[in-house]
């Protein structure tokens, strides 16, 4: 009996593959002829083939083993059958995830562009400079950011106004070194006050280049005349009707008519609490002096009317981007499953 272990294993494996395919008729015509020619003169190879062939025959002749019992199923064995959930969605939706990713990328990019335009172009958004106080500025984005990414569509829209507001509001109030007055005024109807300049400077400087929702904050803050900064900021955010700073009454009036700022009063009460907390650490950091000059430079009323469509665009893009991000994440998760 020929033992073929002497040759290298890899060579034998290669031969086995050739012989095995030959036995199954899986060799191409040329390969088959070459092998048969080789078999004619290679005795050990012929023996190998024969041995392989017998092995296969023995396998094929193995007796079939009968089932020892019945395997029919009873109702209790099977769960409630769900109609073909698993395989289908995967097949159906393979295009969804990449498409959503692309859409998200586009919308996010547009949003960033619009936002950048808002921040960098003085004529449009109005926030060309943001020297101090940076700490307040950072607080606002943080708080607003925390609020923004946690909700779905409806919630985002509702929260964007209030969440954006409490942040700038406490900050604005912190800046205005008249916390108590500001609180009272927030709860009451807004009035024109010498505090306007203070709040305005704060409003200008707070958002800086970190603008979480992009849209509402700058205009909200700028619109926030000193007196009732809360309500006006809310109004500015929620219904970005860019009101001139000098007409806070009008602003709040207009704001109250739109849907979102309906929550302004409620929101106004929140910042009261927040800003009290914020007041302690912050007051000493504001530079109140150059206010008047800054305000004049900014050219108060004009640009704001042009802000509206831009702000709407920012809000819309921001919201769409967030929604798309979540939907995309979901789509990829489902896909992986």
């Amino acid at each position, binding site marked *: *009996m020929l033992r073929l272990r002497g040759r290298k294993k890899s060579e034998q494996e290669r031969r086995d593959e050739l012989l095995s395919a030959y036995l199954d008729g899986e060799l191409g015509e040329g390969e088959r002829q070459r092998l048969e020619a080789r078999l004619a003169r290679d005795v050990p190879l012929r023996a190998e083939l024969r041995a392989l062939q017998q092995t296969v025959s023995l*396998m094929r002749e193995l*007796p*079939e083993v*009968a089932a020892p019992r*019945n*395997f029919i*199923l009873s109702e209790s064995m*099977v769960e409630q059958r769900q109609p073909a959930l698993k*395989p289908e969605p995967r097949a159906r939706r393979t295009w969804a995830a990449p498409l959503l990713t692309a859409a998200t990328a586009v919308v996010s990019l547009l949003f960033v562009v619009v936002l950048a335009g808002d921040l960098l172009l003085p004529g449009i958004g109005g926030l060309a400079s943001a020297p101090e106080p940076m700490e307040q500025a950072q607080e606002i984005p943080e708080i607003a950011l925390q609020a923004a990414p946690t909700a779905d569509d409806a919630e985002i829209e509702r929260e964007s106004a209030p969440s954006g507001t409490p942040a700038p509001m406490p900050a604005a109030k912190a800046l205005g070194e008249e916390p108590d007055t500001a609180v009272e005024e927030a709860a009451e109807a807004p009035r024109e006050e010498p505090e306007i300049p203070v709040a305005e400077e704060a409003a200008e400087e707070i958002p800086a280049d970190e603008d979480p929702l992009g849209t509402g904050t700058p205009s909200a803050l700028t619109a926030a005349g000193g007196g009732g900064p809360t309500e006006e900021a809310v109004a500015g955010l929620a219904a970005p009707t860019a009101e001139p700073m000098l007409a806070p009454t009008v602003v709040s009036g207009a704001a109250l008519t739109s849907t979102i700022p309906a929550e302004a009063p409620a929101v106004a009460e929140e910042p009261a609490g927040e800003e009290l907390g914020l007041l302690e650490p912050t007051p000493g950091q504001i530079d109140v002096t150059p206010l008047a000059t800054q305000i004049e430079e900014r050219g108060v009323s004009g640009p704001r009317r042009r802000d509206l469509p831009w702000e709407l665009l920012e809000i819309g893009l921001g919201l769409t981007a967030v929604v798309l991000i979540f939907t995309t994440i979901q789509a990829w998760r489902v896909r992986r499953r």
Partner: protein
Amino acid sequence: MMQVALREDRDEESLIAAAQRGNLDAFNELVLAYQDQVYNLAYRIMGDPASASDATQEAFISAYEHIDGFRGKYPSSFKSWLMRIVSNACYDELRRRKRHPVTSIEDFELDEEANPALVSDTEGPEAHAERQEMARVMQTGIQTLPADQRITLVLSDVQGFSYQEIAEMTDVPLGTVKSRLARARGKLRDYLQDQGELLPVQYRLA
């Protein structure tokens, strides 16, 4: 074939359709029709009756629960779809055992009673005994193979599936099927040659 013939008034297609609508009785008719083949495949892969029974049961339950997923996708048939399920069940179990080896003599001994089924009753007792012995040696040899090779070998040489069908059932390329099959056969051949003395005379390989 020890297959229970399907009733004429209910061919396989309509049984499958009924099962897909939730008709368990219809599915059970399919079970009766295929259970021997399924069990046989499971037995040849797993090597002992208990494991084969478990795999068979599991396979049928899984088949019923996923029957909606069968849409004639596989070129062959319901049979290859079913065999795919049972071979996957066996594969998972073998992998699981590899990770958590159970030292049991079941792995090494074969239940004699598991090898009873004879295709033909015309064999005399001697021939029958020889076939039993041969089958026992073969099965032991099959169990020296790693799971992938084992399943490929059984699907090809016991169940008669083509390379292409096996490639689809095991989710590997055609080339992988070819090489797994060749290695399995080669190893089994070597094993049988090593066991030369134990084989009944007429089966001894030259």
